[in-house]
């Protein structure tokens, strides 16, 4: 199942309570609830495995909330020619998980979404997700930047800032995000200093006296031995 598919299934497999809250017509409920992220063996203790499992089985954000969230996430990080959007990277699912993992996010997330719908209704007589793209952008423009003095928009600004933070974290901690950033570590290698052209760009150079004592990577596999004064002789 690709990311979009899994997101769609998430929208479907939810309780009706949340939907009623927004006055929508619930779709036929899908009874199958599968963990969005399979609990991989990432070095968990028994207690942690149980905690992860419980979190996967719980539900906090409901389908209608996730729909609005997904729209916001994709306004924050729309696709580019090279890289996918926030939803392509599974960001809404990640935020849905974090709301369960760190419960202090719950009220700001749920309340923030309500605030946004309230604002949207006041302006356009529509819930945020029912607005046209132009209307949605107009609403986001109002809350995407900090203010000098807090106005009536302040709760929306705080909410958008939270979503922006979680969207960026959710996106750049995926393979796609790594690729966009150009992060190429987390792999066995040999560190032999900052590349010359980078040093040059920064007007830096290694102090020869310092560097003379650093590891000679060609001898890294020779077993260390010292003379009596503690000087390395291998």
């Amino acid at each position, binding site marked *: 199942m690709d990311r979009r598919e899994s997101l769609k299934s998430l929208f479907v497999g939810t309780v009706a309570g949340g939907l009623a809250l927004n006055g929508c017509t619930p779709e036929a409920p899908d009874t199958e609830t599968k963990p969005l992220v399979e609990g991989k063996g990432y070095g968990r203790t*028994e207690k942690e495995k149980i905690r992860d499992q419980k979190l996967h089985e719980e539900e906090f954000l409901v389908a209608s909330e996730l729909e609005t969230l997904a729209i916001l996430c994709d306004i924050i990080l729309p696709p580019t020619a090279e890289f996918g959007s926030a939803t392509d990277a599974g960001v809404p699912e990640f935020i849905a998980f974090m709301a369960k993992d760190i419960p202090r996010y719950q009220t700001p997330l749920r309340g923030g979404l309500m605030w946004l719908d309230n604002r949207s209704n006041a302006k356009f007589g529509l819930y945020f997700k029912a607005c046209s793209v132009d209307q949605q952008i107009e609403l986001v423009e109002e809350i*995407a930047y900090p203010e000098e003095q807090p106005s009536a928009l302040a709760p929306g600004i705080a909410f958008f800032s939270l979503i922006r933070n979680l969207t960026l974290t959710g996106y750049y901690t995926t393979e796609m995000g790594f690729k966009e*950033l150009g992060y190429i570590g987390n792999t066995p290698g040999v560190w032999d200093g900052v590349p010359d052209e980078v040093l040059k760009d*920064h007007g830096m150079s290694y102090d020869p006296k310092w560097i003379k004592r650093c590891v000679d990577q060609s001898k890294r596999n020779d077993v260390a031995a010292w003379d009596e004064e503690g000087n390395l002789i291998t």
Partner: protein
Amino acid sequence: MQIIESPEVYDVVIVGSGAGGGMASKILSEGGLNVAILEAGPMFDPRDDTDRTQLRPPWESPRRGASSYRAFGDFDSAYGGWDIEGEPYTHKAGTEFDWYRSHMVGGRTNHWGRISLRFGPKDFKRKDQDGLGDNWPIGYEDVKPYYDKVDKLIGVFGTKEDFPNEPNGYFLPPPKPRLHELYYIKGANKANVPVIPSRLSILTKKINSKRGVCFYCGQCSRGCMASADFSSGTCLIFPAQEAGNQVKLFTNAMARQVVVDKNGKATGVSYINKDDRQEYVIQGKTIVLAASACSSARILLNSKSSTFPNGLGNGSGTLGRYLHDSTGASRMAFVPDLMNRKMYNEDGTGGMHVYTPWWLDNKKLDFPRGYHLEVWGGLGMPSYGFGFNATELNKYAGGVVGGYGNKLREDVKRFYGATMGISGRGESVPQYDNYCEIDPTVVDEWGIPVLRFHYKWTEHERTQAKHMHETFESIFDAMGAQVLGEKPGEDSDYGLLAPGRIIHEVGTTRMGTDPNTSVVNQYMQLHEADNVFVVDGGPFVSQADKNPTWTILALSWRTSDYILDQINKQNI
């Protein structure tokens, strides 16, 4: 409940498998003794794929490595933290102390920063210099041979600097500095602050046929599958077992108390098996406590008997007292010259490649004792928290704060690797009135009475933290960096972290020649019980501004040699 007594009598029962316990198990088992180790947590071996977090990308964790459960995040190799479910501790009103515990084979050596600094001659004799606290009953010359042996056995990179009070050692060659570290060197030089290669117990070069060489993933805090950094399991306990020595590990064994006979002689340790929740007694001729400073004090305080009504080793009333942690404060800065970085693999070793040892003369300052500086930054692997407040730096870079869309993508890339930080880690002055004791009314889920803490920083530590912040700013200013956030003032103790936060707590079973003012003698043997020893940080008279692990290892080795000698002479 019936207490189950093991029939086997071990030569030595060691409580705790961290630095002190691991070293004792190796030396004592090599000396031919039959050793049992009680460890409160489960087995952990970073070479085993089921325990491995090393090299796992953030997306293998559904929370992307967030610290919602483990204090330092999902991939950090410490089972525990400042708060452990079912194992509480309490405080005397108006005081604070955060108690970090890691229950697993290897204890906190699995996740620590690998900063491996010897105490210098001055560090053992602080009272001689400033009249505060007490001198150690031993000096650098007593510990030096053991530091030398630890260097050669375990491996530490660094350089001979002949720097005052920072002794030379047997060093492996250090790695080259990273880019932000070169900026740090430049700024520090301008600000008249010295910088030298750091000293970390990471193998930049092969040290024996069993352990691998660092492959520069920058993740020592996750434990190393190549055993290329120091942890008690991979470098001490497992090698001792693999060599065929008699070292038996009891995991999930939570020690309650030292058992003494009617003559007051220690005969074993009682513990709870966490798997079946039954209480057991394991018998030993010699008992070595290495459960961590506060846990060992707790075990001794709970070891009440008709001979020792206030706990074993507490005749002086100093057991649990003189608890002290390192001081700590940090500051972050934005380095405009590090914007728009060219990408390359900058992971390096799992720690800083350069640092600043204490360089000033306290006689010219308004606080006693020094601090060292640690530096951090670089093109680290993104994990939970990456991108938070990503647009804020536009305040200083002339862009727009806030926003969304492609502008945001550009901001993230522009500022990636453009921030860095400096942390100060300093020496506090041990106080009689900073202590842990048994809370008379509270037990943990194993039924064991818990610790209650009473700890207050003094003006010494607060004034030192103030000075740290002045140093941070002078270095950042000299680098052309923009210091972030507000400089903390008097109302927040100048940014001084709560005691316990630096996880260098020591002093609770302190060493001394006078049984009226100390718990153990210079060989870390209880004044009151010949066959009971403490080999963790508890016996430290004063904690230098150095990280305590290297000294714990050296002293545990020294005590182990003493134990073997005393057994040979049939003194214990």
